């Protein structure tokens, strides 16, 4: 039994210590917004925030999350930056199939929280771990800039 602080609430998870956080949250706790893509930390579809930092939950055992603050896509809209990123994604029309986009949004939110006005290189570096097979990368860049502008009151 592991206790994690998920989206503002303490949750007890009855799962073996080595179960990745991804499966614990999806299968045991029933929050399905976070997606499985590779199981090796290669694609970023499973990105969550642990104590504010983006992590790949498919390779993070639940035991490593004990007592940590975990934020998943389900609660991201409650945060100012997360909400701005989600709105920018919709405005710009980023999603195609949408499957990877929760992970993209989590990574973009972590970036803008840390760096409110990233340049193109910083965007590419921060988003390098998130694959989009539909190839929405150019719009992802545009949406990050759009969110950045809205968070900075119109100026990037």
């Amino acid at each position, binding site marked *: 039994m592991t206790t994690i602080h998920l989206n503002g609430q303490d949750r007890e998870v009855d799962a073996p210590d080595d179960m990745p956080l991804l499966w614990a949250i999806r299968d045991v706790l029933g929050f399905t917004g976070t997606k*499985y893509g590779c199981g090796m930390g290669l694609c970023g579809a499973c990105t969550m925030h642990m104590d504010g930092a983006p992590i790949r939950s498919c390779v993070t055992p639940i035991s490593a999350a004990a007592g940590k603050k975990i934020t998943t896509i389900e609660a991201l*809209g409650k945060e100012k930056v997360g909400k701005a990123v989600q709105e920018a994604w919709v405005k710009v029309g980023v999603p195609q*199939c949408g*499957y990877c986009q929760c992970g993209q949004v989590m990574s973009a939110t972590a970036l803008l929280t840390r760096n409110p006005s990233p340049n193109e290189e910083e965007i590419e570096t921060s988003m390098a771990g998130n694959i989009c097979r539909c*190839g929405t990368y150019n719009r992802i860049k545009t949406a990050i800039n759009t969110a950045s502008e809205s968070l900075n009151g119109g100026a990037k």
Partner: protein
Amino acid sequence: MRPKFSDFSLVNHGIDRRGFIKSVGASGALLFTANWTWAQEKPAKKYGGEGMPGGTKSDPKLFVAINHDGTIDITVTRSEMGQGIRSSLALVVADEMEADWERCRVVQAVGDEAKYGNQNTDGSRSMRHWYEPMRQCGATVRAIIEAAAAAGWNVPVREVRASKHSVIHALSRRKADFAELVGVIASFEAPDPISIRYKNPRTYRYIGKEHTHSADAASMVSGTAIYGGDIRSAGMVYAVVARPPVLGSRVESFDDSEALKVKGVLKVMPIEGAAVPSGFKPIGGIAVVAENTWSAIKGREALKVEWSSSPHDSYESEAYRQRLEEASSNPGKLVRSVGDVEAAFSKAKKTHAATYYLPHIAHAPMEPPVSTAILRNNFLEIWAPTQAPQAARTEAAERVGLPLEKTRINVTLLGGGFGRKSKADFISEAVEIAKAFPGRAARVQWTREDDIRHDYYHTVSGEHLEASLDRRGKVSGWLHRSVAPTISSIFNQDPKHQQEFESNMGHSNVPFAIPNVRIENPEIAAHARIGWFRSVSNIPHGFAVQSFIAELAEEAGKDPLRFYLDLLGDDREINPGELKDGWNHGEDPKKYPVDTGRLRNVLNVATKEAGWGKRLPKGRGMGFAVHYSFVSYVAAVLEVEVEKDGNLIVHKATMAIDCGPRINPDRIRSQMEGSCVMGIGLATTGEVSFENGSAKQSNFHDYQVPRISLAPKSMSVHLVDPEKKVELGGVGEPGVPPIAPALCNAIYAATGKRIRRLPIGDQLA
């Protein structure tokens, strides 16, 4: 007496929304029950949507329901996999019926082709087959609403008009919201047939307009969108399957003693595999069923399986590449012949030959195959991200021995499809496990490794081209031999030749003004499951043809653009039959000729917008390609730089598409953007290779797909107006074929290095 609408007032789709997918607060609603027919000429041979199993439907009662609060439910029957079709088709209905998009909701149809018409979401044909039926549907609903309002106000119907979710009677300055009219409509007796008139296109609010309206974007970025693996049910079991690593291999024996010791594992069970050719059926293996996905994965790791030997054990990609290239250097089955190529070659001032190779690639949608099934109370229900729900349902019904009406397949969002999810194998696996756990939902989850090792791979091919140039540098003879294992090998025993639909994807049907043409297809056998990958055979054919033309331009000492336009010749509409294209993407050859003027036009637009011929910074090069497929015309110009260490930077991509009338421009643009990135990916790193019969790659570390840094630094897509009235073309696929050749032509311009073997990999280092 005609039935009143109220006779059919039902709780809207209540039955379809039952189950695990949460209902979105539907109130009571009204179903339209129109049963009017439209006189339609029946051509001898059916084309387009009518030529598809189930045909098309436009009956409003299938697609539109008005809720008591005035909100509209629009049912979409095609699968959403990123092309935006759920939104685009619903927007067509909403526009024609004068509904406000903000008050519309999209409902996904269950798989039922007898009811809804064809639901196979493939071949880039959803919009071109369903635009007219959906327009007709929307216009009919508007006619009903207007007639009902007029009857309620006791005024002539010609004096009222629907506008923005209301009906207006200008003369009496009355206006009623659709919500206020629900009661009126319910008691209204519609004339039979009701006369409908379409909106003047100038009054369209959504059709052809620039907007990013989406039924799904907001839920996709907030984690509430439901994909194949997001179905929840108490007591659900989770399975992964160990599958034979080689085509035709089967389980010889297995030892599940360690697997059963893994905490959470409930059962280890064989899944019967179909013999080769296995079609869309599972290839068999051993399923590990557990209380959660992780336990199933751990259980499978502890499982020991002995696999039987197979005739395909010796499949080895490097040896196969040599066989392909050798086969392509010798004459093969004649597909098309014009004039006398041999004579042209012997008289030529110059001849040129090149052989190209393209490997297998895997679809690798971000959502690997996954599906859920439950068998309870003599009823089978499935939730699956499928491109072909009817086929999956039919197969599932047979597996459980139930009639079709005792089965239901719910189509979830697809986390990417690209052709992979047309096959029902992963759905049938869930059904088999559901049979072993009656009353409990059973999910089969494919891991990424499963996905890449057991795909229906894009074919592997050798493409050999030879051409002659006359004294003026014009192409006088053209020989193209394409050798590739055919998709039909998944259905038929050991076929050796490409089918017509494969040759007609850019091999036989090249429309060039060349007097002597010879198209051949030497034989080769398949040793892996081959399937449709977005754009299909257009990828190898387009790559070879467009690379070769650039090589010929060089041989002729001419600018590639001028050379290409010359090769196209005068603008003309060619009967596809003349190009040995009897398939023509299933479309009427009279309505869909191959139009060289449209090819010229997109190429001119793309090259002009890209600044073709301008001076580029040192180390950069520009290349183009243009390709006709899925009855659309697409040109791409790429500007690249190769750094000293071989690192490739795509600075700029410029694309132009003529897909005929445009319904949702932003989604056309997004498909071109995505096609560009996918094309760059397959050109640079896309390869699944085989050793001892098994795929060597397994996950994104060794099967690399583009990341953000490989996307073009800038990208523009130009939606080209056709110069004449033409029919709707495809959008989802035709953007891919020109990208790899445009990229390699650009690399040649930048470095002088000609790439004839994909992927590029480390060839630039």
